[in-house]
């Protein structure tokens, strides 16, 4: 079955995969998804704490900042395993994104890094409602403006904020408990709420970075988060395929298993091929992490490929589960919903492909 094939000379990847499997066995992903959805919260605190305890919150945070300082290959292996296990806490957006963002700065991030590693929720405020980059306004040390699509907004201790001050981008933090900060939540398709955070003259922390350092850090954070999302999507795709192969191989109609019908077999083969391509595209990106220009392109390709594969495979998987697939009690629908959510996070395939093409043709 499809897997992201990567060199693993010191077995770090295997250990990470095992450790996800262990957590997955304890914290039933599907049950957690449903519980979190019913509670209308943004994450499951217990699972999140377990993930932090395993060191994943700081997986890609530099060692100098107390993180594990691991690279693209380890990130990909972990995220793929999370996808497979349907562990749907917002790892990519709440662990990877702030880790890379902070790690890229030439600033004192020790306190923030310590909190992050310890399982604190530090969402980044930067997106508008349509997903575009929307800096808030910083003036006299106070923040005003709003950000949307914020993961973990209800559970946040501190927000990291992309703002503009005197026409220049700056990165600051703000306490979640600040006066002048309000959070509105809407349900997300993957069972976690997404917040809108509205600030009015909220007192900001000291400026962490300014100018090109901020945009560079954001670029890096977006890139690594996309890579993690791509790996998670590839994991979802592969696992949804396996589940569907199992189901159709056991479900009998007209005295034959569904999977013995040639039309179903060919469709499953096509789904497998999509998952294979998703995995190899993510592997390709992971191996290019030390070549910035090639990496940037490879990540665009991988996120687009894995997003298309995961959404298409899970849609077909739901269909191949027949009426059962249309019920909420069947886990396959959760894979579909999770795939849609991650596919729509940080750029849908069409947008990523066009960015790839633009970069290539500009080169």
């Amino acid at each position, binding site marked *: 079955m499809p897997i992201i094939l990567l060199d693993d000379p010191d077995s770090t990847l295997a250990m990470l995969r095992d450790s996800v499997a262990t957590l997955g066995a304890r914290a039933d992903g599907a049950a957690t998804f449903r519980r979190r959805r019913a509670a209308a919260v943004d994450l499951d605190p217990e699972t999140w704490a377990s993930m932090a305890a395993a060191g994943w919150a700081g997986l890609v945070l530099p060692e100098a900042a107390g993180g594990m300082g691991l690279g693209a290959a380890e990130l990909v292996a972990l995220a793929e395993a999370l996808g497979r296990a349907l562990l749907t806490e917002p790892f990519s957006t709440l662990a990877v994104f702030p880790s890379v963002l902070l790690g890229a700065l030439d600033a004192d991030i020790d306190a923030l890094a310590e909190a992050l590693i310890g399982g604190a929720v530090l969402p980044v405020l930067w*997106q508008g*409602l*349509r*997903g575009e980059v929307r800096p808030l306004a910083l003036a006299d040390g106070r923040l005003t403006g709003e950000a949307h*699509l914020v993961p973990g907004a209800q559970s946040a201790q501190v927000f990291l904020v992309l703002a503009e001050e005197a026409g220049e981008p700056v990165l600051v933090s703000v306490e979640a408990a600040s006066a002048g900060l309000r959070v509105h939540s*809407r*349900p*997300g*398709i*993957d069972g976690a709420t*997404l917040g809108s955070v509205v600030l009015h003259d909220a007192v900001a922390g000291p400026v962490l970075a300014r100018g090109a350092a901020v945009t560079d850090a954001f670029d890096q954070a977006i890139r690594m988060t996309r890579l993690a999302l791509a790996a998670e999507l590839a994991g979802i795709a592969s696992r949804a395929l396996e589940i569907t192969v199992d189901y159709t191989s056991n479900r*009998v*109609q*007209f*005295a034959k298993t569904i999977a013995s*019908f040639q*039309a*179903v077999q060919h469709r499953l083969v096509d789904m497998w091929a999509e998952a294979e391509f998703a995995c190899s595209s993510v592997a390709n990106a992971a191996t290019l992490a030390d070549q910035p220009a090639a990496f940037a392109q490879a990540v665009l390709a991988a996120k687009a490929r894995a997003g298309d594969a995961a959404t298409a495979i899970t*849609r077909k998987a*739901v*269909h191949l589960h*027949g*009426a059962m*697939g*249309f*019920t*909420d*009690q069947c886990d396959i*629908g959760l894979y*579909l*919903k999770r795939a*849609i*959510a991650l*596919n*729509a*996070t*940080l750029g*849908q395939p*069409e*947008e990523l492909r066009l960015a790839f093409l633009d970069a290539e043709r500009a080169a």
Partner: protein
Amino acid sequence: MHPEQQDWNALSDEDFRAIFRDWVDANCPAHLRFMRKQRPVFDEVAEWYHALARKGWLSPVWPQEWGGMGLNAAKHIVYVEEWARLGCPRIPDHGIGLTGPLLIEFGTPEQKDFFLPRILSGEHVWCQGYSEPNAGSDLASLRTSAVREGDEFVINGQKIWTTLAHCANWILLLARTDKDAPKPQNGITVLLVDLTSPGVVVRPIPNLREEADFCEVFLDDVRVPAKNVVGQVNGGWALAKAVLGHERIFLGAPSRPEYALTRLEMLAEDRGAFDDPAFRSRYAKLRLDLYDLGSAFERFAKVLREGGTLGADVSVLKLFCSELYQRITEETLAVAGEEARFYDDLPVGSGHVDAMNLFLDARAPAIFGGSNEIQRNILSKAVLGLPSR
């Protein structure tokens, strides 16, 4: 004949369309138009149900002597088209569309006298008990048993995918009355079963949208009077297949993709997507698919209008329609962009677009009513005459 009735079939399609549309538009409550919910329960639409019943327009195809409009296929198409165009809600229609026609054709005089008026009054709300956990597409393998004991049948078994059973009080049940029939479909009987009978338990099954469109129905020693058998004991298979008739055309009626396309258009307008030629290109494809679904629907409607009967080929509409519905809703999520992460409806200038609701709903029509794979199997034999070996 109901006082409001007349010989509708004698009118031109245009005249009938105008009369029907005007009254419906004036009488269907605004808050029930273009409902987000595809399958509202009885209480939500009771007002509209009773208005139709009072007018005598609740059941388009029943003969007028039984309180129907007696429409022929051509007029029935007009009825369905205008209903969709005006955004009227789907009403619980198993009594009108299934039990009623079955009793009118195969029921005893007593069954007709007792049941038909109670359907029209809304006193009886029906559901359809065909599918079972191991007999979905393959109905012949159903196992719910009905064993004769004196004047009664004792029923044991389980039904599943029973649409709106939790809001119904009667079920049209297929049960096995002969386990030893040489062909499995020969031992099946149709029974009318009161869902309030002892031994019946109904459990809703939430769907992908977390709504309870359908249910499981458990039957544990449920006793049903023998007079509630429809047609012959062991003769239920033919009855179950007979009732569809020309109504199979409506499985391919363009209303769902049409509704979804208006939602896509609303979202695209609001988000400026029409300024993007790449979107225009994809939208144009969907728009013309819908347009041509209309032409194809008309090709089959024409057969009915000229008094013909429909062959197996009509299910091409269902195939195309269900897959188009899916493609439209997938494009809607693409236009939603990052907002496809939301589960709730998306605000647009003038209201909301239920992008995710439609996307999830669109998973269903390709499965229910005979999965698209089964339809293709049937078409390959019945229309193309392809060999088995």
